[in-house]
């Protein structure tokens, strides 16, 4: 149990470090992962 908690804490710490070290996402990332196929919601725009 102690080992599991330590492993989880490390994973979380690593994720926070990675996040802090990473640049903010580009604006276009706000439009990703809504659908699995990337069709244009308004193809005329």
């Amino acid at each position: 149990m102690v080992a599991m908690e330590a492993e989880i804490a490390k994973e979380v710490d690593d994720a926070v470090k990675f996040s802090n070290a990473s640049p903010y996402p580009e604006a276009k990332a706000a439009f990703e992962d809504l659908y699995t196929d990337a069709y244009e919601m308004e193809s005329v725009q």
Partner: protein
Amino acid sequence: MTMMTYIAAIGAAQREAMLADERVIIFGEDVEANVYGTTGGSKTRAEKGDFVEEFGRHRVRNTPIAEEAMVGTAIGAAMTGLRPIVDLSYSNFLYMAMDQFVNQAAKNRYMFGGQSSIPVVFRSAMFYSLNTAAHHSDRPYPMFMGVPGLKIVVPASASDAKGLLRTAVDSNDPVLIFEAVPLWGLKEEVDENEYRIPFGVARVRREGSDVTVVAISGCVPLALAAAEQVSTDRGISAEVIDPRTLVPLDIKTIIESVRRTGRLIITEPAHRTCGAGAEIAALVAEHAFDALRAPVLRVTAPDMQVPFSPVLEAELYPTAEKIAAAITRVCSNMPVSSESAKGAVL
């Protein structure tokens, strides 16, 4: 090709999908007994449905009348590898599962950063104009159009119902199919072989040059009848377009048509306010306003609950006569009437 009803085409598509992929399962209200004829050939609840015999109860299963549990179960099953088709029966019953639709089905992929997909098909039937009263007669597809992450399908013919359902089952996103029950008995030549109809591709049901009529779901045959009527009576050439899917919407085909005709009518069985017609009118105003030679008109149901009285209910929905009147009006470039401004009929 085989002459087939709309509802039989749904059943044929489900059988094809079940045969093609063992990950496809069907569950929902009364699917084992095949009450409406989409899961086999048995006629009574006491008989076992053909699908149950053919595919087994591990793939065709009744659920309790608990829509939130049905939809939630389907989402979980889809995220872990199955491809459920959920029969929710009446479209009104979708409201019971709104949290699962809006907060889970539509958002899970986005909130997991694209690491999950939700390949579920939710079928429901719009039992309007059949005297089933306010709790069973809604046409609620527009409110789901406002939920990013869902795909919205509104087949209007047997061949489209079959091909669109196969595409829906292939989709890795949640798809809501709204079937107009008044169309269930409509017959059409249908290819008995497997085929798919891509989402976001409208079907031009009738070509014309004077006015574009975008007809949705149960309004498609009415619009075709109206187009025939105004052609005979007044020599007006009406183009009738069935979008077939509302999310994604083939706005290109609609705009190209309006640029040719200069006039647009949208007819649908849903309420007027914030209906699919309102969205289509807005898109055309944004992208083809310069092409319009007359105001855009909508022929819809008014913002009214559905009465049980057959006489009163019949007053609510678009008819071929109402659509023909709207066509005549825009082709005369007449001003919008006060009746239209009230949203009563047009």
